[in-house]
């Protein structure tokens, strides 16, 4: 098998095929992400991917960029350090719902509050996949998982709501099916100054979808087609996902807000020489992509 895929140069091809299950949406998310970075115009040398623990966390291991596979929940503070040490780096956090919102929840909200300049891609498959399908902070009410055998009785987080309330200036949600819009949104998120969050709803056919009798990965993608509704600009407070209900997707928040470093410069720029000013990433303009 000598055939190579055009994206192979951005993959650590000695590690392909990857470990994700048949029908898992992560490969599709990764493809969309690679499309986005290729089209972004941002030099690949400046890109750093930081991930946590979980199936989504494995993304870092497959991308042929400076990539960091850190501990559970701690991708965001690690990325914060990386960013602040060298603001010319484009730092992207790719991790799962449990990693970013449960154990990593505190870091998520504080980094959004500070508006640290990084892009956070949260792949939401509604459970902890890597460890066998336990319930997590986004598991819909009533769903079955290995730690909620009687049906989940906890209310889940709405990630866009959490992100927006914490101050993220760019919040979007897409499903793994809608790859073109997803890639464009990822591209916007990459170019957005500040803490941009893109949630991707993705199948977990081996675990969550199986436990909840939702069929194969393909069946779940078809259900996205039925249930996903694009509502750009929807109120993030009103986009919670109901079990077997509508999935509202689109770009919910896209505002301008000074980043952490903007505020540092504002306060300290007059008093001190701030060397990192010289390291500002050269912005590349890309036509905006609203659909």
């Amino acid at each position, binding site marked *: 098998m000598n055939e190579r895929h055009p994206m192979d140069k951005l993959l650590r091809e000695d590690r392909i095929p990857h470990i994700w299950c048949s029908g898992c949406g992560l490969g599709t998310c990764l493809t969309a992400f690679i499309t986005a970075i290729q089209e972004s115009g941002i030099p690949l040398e400046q890109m750093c991917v930081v991930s946590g623990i979980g199936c989504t966390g494995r993304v*870092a291991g497959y991308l*042929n960029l400076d990539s960091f*596979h850190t*501990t559970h929940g701690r991708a965001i503070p*690690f990325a914060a*350090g*990386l960013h602040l040490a060298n603001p010319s780096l484009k730092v992207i956090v790719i991790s799962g719902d449990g990693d970013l919102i449960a154990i990593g929840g505190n*870091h998520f909200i504080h980094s959004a509050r500070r508006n640290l300049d990084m892009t956070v891609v949260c792949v939401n498959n509604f459970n902890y996949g890597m460890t066998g399908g336990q319930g997590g902070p986004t598991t819909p009410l009533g769903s079955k998982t290995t730690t909620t055998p009687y049906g989940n009785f906890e209310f889940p987080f709405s990630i866009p709501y959490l992100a927006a309330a914490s101050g993220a200036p760019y919040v979007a949600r897409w499903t793994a099916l809608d790859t073109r819009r997803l890639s464009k949104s990822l591209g916007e998120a990459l170019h957005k100054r500040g803490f941009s969050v893109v949630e991707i709803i993705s199948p977990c056919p081996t675990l969550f979808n199986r436990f909840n009798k939702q069929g194969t990965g393909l069946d779940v993608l078809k259900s996205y087609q039925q249930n996903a509704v694009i509502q750009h600009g929807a109120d993030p407070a009103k986009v919670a996902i109901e079990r077997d209900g509508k999935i509202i997707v689109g770009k919910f928040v896209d505002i301008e807000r000074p980043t952490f470093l903007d505020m540092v410069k504002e306060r300290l720029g007059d008093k001190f020489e701030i060397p990192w000013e010289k390291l500002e990433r050269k912005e590349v303009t890309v036509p905006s992509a609203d659909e």
Partner: protein
Amino acid sequence: MESESGVLRGEHFLSGNEACAEGAIAAGCRFFAGYPITPSTEVAEHLSERLPEVGGMFIQMEDEIASMNAILGAAWGGMKTMTATSGPGFSLMMENLGLGIMTETPCVLVNVQRGGPSTGLPTLVGQGDMMQARWGSHGPYEIIAVSPSSPQEFFDLTIKAFNLSEQWRVPVLVMADEVVGHMTEKVTIPEPGTIRLTARRTPRVPPEKYLPYEPDADLVPQMAIAGHGYRMHITGLTHDRKGYPVINEEAQAELVERLVEKIRKNKHEIVEYQEEMCEDADVIVCSYGISARTSLLPIERAREEGIKVGFLKLIVVWPFPDELIDELAGHVKGFVVPEINFGQISLEVERCAHGKARVILVPHAGGGIHDPEKVLEAIRRAAA
């Protein structure tokens, strides 16, 4: 990213925590991420003011866990980084200290110890984290820890910690205590050009030939920095020389053994202690941190009483100077180990003495320094 201007020089009257902060700056540290916790907060406060003056970055993170991770990330971004905490925060940092060890990330973690366990005595001294410093994170590993006994030492040893962390690519712990952190004394800061600093070992090969975890002869690999085109993969999972996760026994043996041997084989270059009057000694008082300093009076009194007592201060506590203790145990009657806990480093002394000399612990629950009488009593018992 570095600026010479603003680095202090000359003689100053500083508290230990302030001296630590200045030591970090003198060592080239330009990134601090921390969380306030008594009695280490002054390190963070001082750096929040001083780091912008030298072109560095200070950030107060949301908790100690974030702080530990931020300093790891910033190290991979190319900076010399540090955090400071005390007991409760030290416990929180343990998991990610392991990440730093596994990924071989240079950074410095200062623990200004206080009374424990748990919330304990936030404003008062303790030395109860010494074993945690060695074994606090999970899994098998070796770590380097230094212990200052004065503000001047706190300054000097912080610099030493940075140098050791860069040389051996391992997080280095500065195990101070509340008394050393809060006492104020004269600190002499040398001219910046005269301070010996160890530079990061960056790759000597181009990206196509670079393997992130291919060790040099001293078992330390070259460290690429993010953003320079090396496209490395760094993970906390057991990994091969390419940095890719490999989950099997062979990879574990190759990697973890090297991480351990990296410190053990190079121990002779790392271990440091101060030995006085030990040649003719019948008893040696062995200690570290503030307890080493408070041993000086009892030693003087004991000498006046005619007891031949020597003084051994551990400057580098981990790795522990096994061979030294073993050798000394051969010609003394006993060791006296005063420490502000119920026996931690004394266990190491006992272990390394191999039964050749008795080891008398002078414990202290915390909250104060040792009563010289108690140490003197122990010296008399050891000499008997």
